[in-house]
Structures are given as C-alpha cells and as structure tokens.
C-alpha cells in the first residue's frame, strides 16, 4: 500500500532534482511516471491529513473509490502520453513532472483552496508547455481565460468561506444545503464558471481551439486526456458530491452541458483539419460527460470519461504525429493514410467507433448507461444526447472512410490515389494504438472487465455520507 502523498511529493522532488541534472532528467521523468502509474493501483484508500492538522482545520487528501480510479486512469494516461510524445520532451521534462504532481494533487485533495493551488500549478505549467507550439497569442488567450477562470473559482469559494467559515470539502458538503439561496447561487455559478474554463464548457472555452488545434505529439494527448480527465473529474467531484446544485440551477447547468455537446459537435462537423475536428469533439465529449455528472448518472459519466480519455489518447497522438511529420493536417490530404500503418489505423478506428458508441466497443456500454440514466430524468435529455451522437458519428465516419480508402470520387478505391503523407516515429504509437484497441474491443464485449471498479467509484461519489464519515469522523 502506497501513501498517496508520495504521488505528489515524489514527482515534485524529482522535478526539483531534474533542474540540476538535466541530462538524466528523462530517466527521472519516466521513472516517476512509471512509479505513479503502477503505484496508482496500490494506493492506500482513506483520508490523509497533511501536517498533522485534523480536517476541517487542516488540508487533507482523500482517496475514496472515485479518486482511486481517476488516479489510476490519469497516471496511465500520463504514461501513454509520454510514450506517444517521447520525441518531443526536449526541455519540458521538469514541467511535466510538476504537472504530474499537480494533477495528482488536484484529484486527491480534500480542500477547495488546495484544489485552486493545484489547478494553478497545472494551468501555469500548461501555459508554458503550450507555448512550445509557437502560437503565443493562443497561449495568451488561454492564459487570460485560465486566470479569469481560476479567479472566478477563487471568488466563489471565498464567498463560501465567508459564509461557512471552512474550505474543507467534506465540511462544506455537510453545510451547503443549509446556506441561503443567494449565497448558493453566487458561489455555485462562480465555481461552475471557474471550473468550466478548465473543463471546456461552452461559453468559457474560447481558448481550446487555439491550444488543442496547435498541439504537438506531447501536448495533444496531455491536454486532451490528462488535463481534461482531471478537470472533468474534479468537476464531477465538486458538483456531484460537494456543492450539489438545486433543481432550477442544475437545469441551467445541464442545459449548458448539452449546448456544449451539440454546438461543439456541429462545429466539429464543419472542421476540415484533423486536430481542429478532434478539438471540438473533445469539447463535445466534455459537455456530454458533465451533463451526465449533473443529472446524477455518475456511473455512465465515469465510463464515458474513461472511454473518451483513452480514445482521445490515440486520436490526438495520431493527429499530432501526422501534423508533425507532414506540416499539415487537412483531412482531405490524408486519404488512405491508414493503409501505410494498419496498426495505428486499427487503434484509431476502434477508438473512434468506441467514442461514437457503436457496439462491440467499450463506448457502446457507456452509451447505453448514459441513456439509461438520462431516461431516469426525462425524455428530452436522451433525445438530445442521441442527436449529438448522430452528428458525432457522421463526421467521425467521414474521417475514417477517408483515411482508410484512398481514391478519387467516382473511381474505384485504389492505392494510386494514396496520400503522400507519412508518419514518422510511429512505433510507440502503434503499440499504444493496438493495446488500447484490444482493450476497447475486449471490454466492449465483456464490460465487466473494466467496470467493476468504476461502479464502486460511482457509488462512492453518490454516497456522500461515507465520504463525510471518512473525512470528519475518521482518525
């Protein structure tokens, strides 16, 4: 059993050391990443006080089933990202380790302000990483919105603090139902807007296009999977368990989630570049998952979160690699590219089909769960989810068909019309693609393969009482 503090401390320590031994920093980075990826499975569950202060007075880390599964997923994703982007590491190794520490802390922390600090750690690191794409204005936009978002979040929690006198999540979740309506609405909307910036909800996410659309093989998967998963997971934790909104406000939040989903999917349909398409798809998925968290379908949301994260790893790795190798990612120029590397094609296809939610792949299980929990609420949400899925399916299928089959329109498909593009340094990606592809297929046929722990995680999220007793009653 591993103490969760180590997941934050060791990467931070390694980051500090790496400043002094630049040459060996890649060893440190991979070592740390492998350590966290493995130790995620052996994480000790329960509540951990930092500095010996009992909650609600001190900061605590909370490992329940929910953060347990998220930690595993995020650390695995981080490792896969490193594999995919290992030719891009360059000077970013230290920052990557800081990010690893930050994201682990973000998920595990039991304190709202601590969460803010970790959020800032990863976003500032994110600005620096994103700047490696040389699109400085986009990064600046990200910075402005990111800072605005975290300021709003901070404002929101400070309003809560001013009312309740505590920032401990467990304490707040206990007292929150009793606060007055206006405080509720102010704090909720500010926290929602603040986290919405990171979670890519629609009016708050103008930065995403510039950042995701210009990613490298390293930052692509990092932003779209590690960051996104962390941000959405925190979103789920806060609005699913800590600050549960009332029925009217939750309607506004659900509406925002669904609007994000459908608007982003239509935008993706109008995109001609692969990375841009994936960007909007990520936004759409974020909207969908957040909707699921909001309507209380934690299980479905978690499954889709994991489905989306692993799928996007392949998709973004592939897209960014294609751009890196050829200086272009216009879909029309990529026709028949999969024929040059069938393994990547397989992984990409399976990931895509899983994302759309076609049967035989894991995503289908997610989709039926989503529909099931959506129907529990009313009839319109599932209809909108289905509408979005149709649009999503259309552009992904268009993409797949294009990438598998070279050929002029009106002529038989043939190798002659194949794209001139190549994928350089694709070995690690092929490996990841096949691995994830097989996992998707196997878990698509036997979902229990993955979902046992997810179900527990979802239960722990909806079970606030256990959370409370673990934090406040424990030790």
């Amino acid at each position: 059993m591993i103490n969760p503090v180590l997941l934050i401390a060791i990467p931070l320590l390694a980051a500090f050391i790496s400043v002094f031994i630049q040459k060996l920093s890649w060893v440190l980075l991979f070592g740390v990443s492998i350590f966290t990826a493995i130790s995620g499975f052996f994480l000790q569950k329960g509540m951990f006080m930092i500095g010996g202060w009992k909650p609600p007075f001190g900061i605590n880390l909370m490992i329940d089933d929910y953060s347990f599964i998220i930690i595993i997923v995020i650390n695995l994703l981080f490792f896969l990202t490193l594999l995919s982007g290992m030719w891009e590491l360059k000077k970013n190794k230290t920052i990557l380790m800081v990010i690893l520490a930050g994201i682990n802390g973000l998920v595990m922390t039991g304190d709202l302000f601590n969460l803010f600090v970790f959020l800032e750690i990863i976003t500032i690191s994110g600005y620096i990483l994103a700047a490696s794409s040389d699109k400085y204005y986009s990064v600046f936009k990200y910075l402005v919105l990111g800072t605005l978002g975290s300021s709003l979040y901070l404002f929101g929690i400070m309003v809560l603090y001013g009312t309740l006198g505590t920032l401990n999540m467990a304490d707040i979740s206990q007292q929150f139902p009793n606060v007055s309506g206006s405080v509720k609405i102010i704090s909720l909307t500010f926290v929602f807007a603040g986290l919405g910036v990171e979670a890519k909800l629609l009016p708050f996410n103008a930065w995403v296009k510039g950042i995701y659309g210009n990613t490298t093989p390293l930052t692509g998967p990092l932003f779209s999977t590690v960051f996104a998963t962390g941000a959405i997971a925190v979103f789920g934790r806060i609005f699913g368990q800590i600050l549960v909104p009332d029925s009217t406000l939750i309607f506004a939040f659900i509406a925002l989630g669904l609007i994000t989903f459908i608007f982003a999917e239509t935008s993706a349909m109008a995109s001609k570049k692969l990375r841009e398409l994936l960007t909007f798809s990520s936004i759409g998925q974020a909207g969908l998952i957040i909707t699921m968290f909001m309507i209380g379908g934690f299980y479905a949301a978690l499954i889709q979160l994991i489905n989306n994260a692993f799928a996007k790893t392949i998709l973004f790795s592939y897209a960014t690699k294609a751009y890196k190798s050829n200086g272009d990612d216009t879909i029309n120029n990529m026709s028949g590219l999969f024929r040059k590397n069938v393994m990547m094609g397989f992984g990409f296809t399976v990931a895509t089909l899983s994302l759309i939610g076609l049967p035989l792949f894991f995503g289908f299980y997610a989709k039926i769960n989503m529909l099931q929990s959506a129907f529990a609420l009313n009839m319109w949400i599932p209809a909108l989810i289905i509408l979005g899925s149709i649009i999503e399916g259309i552009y992904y299928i268009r993409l797949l068909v294009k990438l598998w089959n070279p050929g002029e329109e009106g002529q038989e498909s043939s190798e002659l019309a194949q794209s001139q593009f190549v994928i350089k340094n694709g070995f690690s990606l092929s490996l990841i693609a096949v691995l994830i592809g097989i996992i998707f297929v196997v878990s698509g046929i036997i979902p229990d393969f993955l979902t046992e722990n997810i179900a527990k995680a979802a239960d722990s999220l909806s079970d606030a009482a256990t959370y409370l007793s673990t934090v406040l009653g424990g030790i």
Partner: protein
Amino acid sequence: MTINSLIAQGMISSLLVYLLTKLNKKLGAFLTVLFSGYLLFVIFGFQNSAGEVFSLIHFGEFELTFMTSHYAWYFAIVLTLTYFLVSFFNPYWMKKMVNPAAYNMLFMVSMVGTVGVFYAKDFLTLFIFYEIVVWSSLFIIPMGKSRKTPVIYYTISSIGSFAMLYAIFYLYHSVGSFDIQAVSEAMSQAPNTYRFVFFTMIVAGLTKLGIFPFHTWLPAAHGSAPHTFSPVLSGGLVKVGGFIALITATVIPSFKILAGDLQLMGVPFENYLIMLLGAVSIVVGTLMAIKQEDAKKLIAYSTVSNSGYIIIGLMLNDQVGFAGGMMHVFNHAMASGAMFLSFAAIAYRTGTTKMSELGGLIKRMPLTFAAYLIAIISLAGIPPMSGFASKWLIFQGLASNGMMFIALAAFFGSIGSFLYVFRPLSAAFLGQLSPKHKDVKEVPWMMQIPLIIMSFLTIFYGIFPGRILAYISKIQESVGLKGVEIEGTKIIAATGMWDSLVITLVFGGGFMLAAILFFISPKAKPVDQMNTYTSGEFIYDPDHYHYAKNYYATFENNYGNKKRVELFFDAVALRVKEFGEMVKTMFFAKSVSFSIFWIMLFFTLVYFWGDKV
C-alpha cells in the same frame, strides 16, 4: 450447434479470415464461401425450432440472449442464402479490391451480425447486432467508387438506429425489460406508449429498407459499393429493415394493441401512415429508376420501390397481404441479388456498369443474360416467376381492404417496373455489341453457380410458391395472424385464387404451340448484327447504332429531374455545418473579449433568473 456458439464461431473465424487473406488473398476469399455455406447449413437446421433460448454473454448488468422463431429463421435463411451465393464472387474480386483482408473480414462480420439481429430475444441484442451490421457493411462501401456515400449511408442509418435505440430505452424505462415478448405483453396495456414507440422504432426499419424519405442512401450506397457487395446490400441487408418493421408492427401486435385507434381502410391509422410512405417510395423509386444511366443505380432505385411493397405487405397484418410482403422479402432478395450479380459479372469482364457503354452482351455472356432475364421477370411480377406470387398476394390484400391510393402506387410501380427492368436488358444485353467488348467471355464457372442457383430458386418458387407460403403461414400463426390458405399448388385469398402450376403449364403449352408453329415454318436465314434496316444509309459503327442513352427521355420530360429529397438533406447538412461555423465564430473567436462577454452574459442571466432558486 447452437446459435450463440455459431455467432462466436463467426466472429472468431472472421478474424481468421482476415489473417488468412493477408497470407493469401484467394485462400481467405474461399474461406468466406466455406463459412457462409456452413452458416447456411447450420441455420437451415433450425427450420422447425421455435422458442429455444440461448444465452450469449452478460453485458454489464444486461444479458444478451437469442431465441429461435419461425420468422427469425425465415429472414435468417434468406440473408445467409444471399450471403452464401454472393460469396462465390469474392475470390475473383480480391485482386481488384483495395483492402481484401478487411473486405473478407467485414463481409463475415456483417453476415454473422444479421443472424444475430434475427435471432435476438431482446431488443438490446437486436440493437447490438443491428449496429454491428451497419458499421461492418459501412466500411466495405468506400472500397468501391465513392468515399461520400458511406457517410450518407451512415447518416441515414444512424438516424434510424438511434431512433430505435431511443425507443428501446424508452421501453426499458417504462416496461423495465428489453425482452421482446415481455414488451409485447406489456404494450397491450399501454397503447399510448406503444404508439410513440411504434413511430420511433419503425424509423430504423424505414431507413434500412430505404423507404421515402430515407431512400436517398440506397442508390448512393448500392450504386457505388464494390460490385460484389451491392447484391448483399440490396438483396440482403435491406431486409433487416423489413425485420425491424415486422418486430415493431407484427411481433408486437399493432393490430391488436391499436385496435381502439382510428382505423383507416381496415388497419390502424399508424400502419396506414407507414403504408403511405411505402406507396410514395414505390412511386419515387420507380420514377427515379427509370431515368438512371448506371445499371447499379437503377437496380438500387428498384430496391427502393420494392421495399415499398415489402412494407405495405407487412403493415397490412392480415392473412394475404402480410404473406405477400413476407414472400416478397425472399423474392426480392433473389431477384435483386441476381440482377446485381449479373451486373457484377458484366463489370468483371468489361469494367463498367454504365448501360450506354455496353450492348449486345447476350452473344458473349448468355448465362448472365438468362439469369438477369429470369430475375427481372420475377421483379416485374410476371407470372411464371416467384415475384408474381408476392405481388399478387399484396394486390389481393390491398383490394380486400380497398386501399385505393396505395393500390394506385402499387400498380404504378408494378407497371413502371417493366420500364426500368427492361432498360438494362435492352441496353446491356441486347442491341449492338460494341467492338470494345468483342473479346468478352462468359464469367468463370464459380461465378456462374450463384447465378444458376438464384435463377433456379426464382423459377422453382414461382411454380411452387406454396412451398414458401406454407412456412409463411406458420409464421403468421406464430404471431397471431390467420395463416395464408394453400391447397396443393393453389393459393386462396378471400378475393380470388390462383394456381401457378396450371399457369406455368398453360404458358408452357402456349410456348410449345408457338415453337411448333415456328419450327414447321420455313427456316430463317441468320444474318449479321449490323445487317438491319437503316433507312438506306450505310452505318458502320455499332456504338452509334445502339439505342441506350436517355432511353426514356420522353417519359422523363413529364416529371423532370428534381432530386428534392436529396436537395433537402443537403440543405440540412449545409445548415448544420453553417451552424457549426457560426458556433466557431461566436464562441471561439480570435478576440478574448467575445468569451468574456459570454461569461458575463452567463452570470447576468443566472442572476436575473436567480431569485427563483
């Protein structure tokens, strides 16, 4: 052998086929023949099985199960037969295919998927296999001529399948079960729920069948799919839609549940509305088929029209018309399969399916011609072939209910089919042989096998339609309808009867008489193809002397050239894209101010509205 292990075997052997095709292209293709034959053989053994339950796997908290039934067997046998026959073409196309291994694998997956659809005991299993069929067939289509049409196919198909998924979960929400039997029983207490489910679920059937207004994918996809896959799409996969319609309207007995609703011409108005759509697709399919220049597109539009007959027959839910609709499933599978296959054979030898580039092929490919001729006689519903049996039954069903507007479409489609089926016959097989195709040969023997079998089945069941109808009457009884009445070779409907054996004999007699007359008369002198009446001019180019282009131009002038539905869908797609662009400019603008404005607007709205919290 059980259904569940059959499905598992199929899925595993599809992987095997993939690997073997990578090893050796022909080997893998032969394996598809072998396996589809095996599947056909095993499925055939389930002929009399009904109510046997097989469990597949636990899918999360749900269980996927299969159950044998008569209607499942009927559809499964039609589909596997089509797949089996078409698979004979596969070995010869491996060289021309861009990705033969994937083709073979997806061919197998879609075949196994259809079996899964038909034998599904619960809606979830049905949907899973339905979608497997969709995506597996989807990825075969772009190996042919077009990269756009699979997207159209997927779009329309997913509108249907997601509507069905919605209905399934709506049912699950209100009934608490996916089981078809359980739902069927629960629905009899809840006609209001059923009415909603009926319309949402049947959309899947309509899209797959290619019923107006969802018909646009059919000509696009069938016309541009690889030549070997078009017969499967048209002859086979379209019938999956028929099956969904059957489940929705008959297995869940709409005629009982909706008996309290407004009845139009003897059926609930819900069924009548669907029949009207079927009628429109008959007319649209016929009119569009008449003007196609490409034979495959023409056959695809004829599929639209024939799907109309199927849905009309199924929606009648009576003794006669329903049997006609069911029998038309088989007839159309054989006929359109044979038509597509014969044009695949032509494309194999000449490399084109454009009718104006062909001509006079009867001299070079007589067997293909014969297969095509028999298929079109059946498709046009002319007596000695099986197609007449089903059309006759549907007409009788319509007549006894007095559905004159649907009958109008049915008659128009039936007469109109003479026009479009004759055109490829005339333009590709008859007329002047082009010098380009002087050296064309008949297709290899293995490609002849399916043509011969399909022709044989068409004739056999044309003469003895009772053989099929007896089984269909079992199906009818199993779903609570009165079985169609058969006496020997006589088929009896309330408004008349007919005996196809007698008709065949009389026709044979008439033919003999004519032949005797022909052969006792002085012998005719054979002349060269070009030796014809040319108004005294000297004509030397057979290509110019072949009337094939714009065949029915004069008739087409009466209805013009407007693809309104396609235009509508295009417009919708364009609007969606424009909307996406708008979202991009509104929410993802270059300036930060935009998004800060949106954020502030969000706060403002929430606070204006906030006092209601």
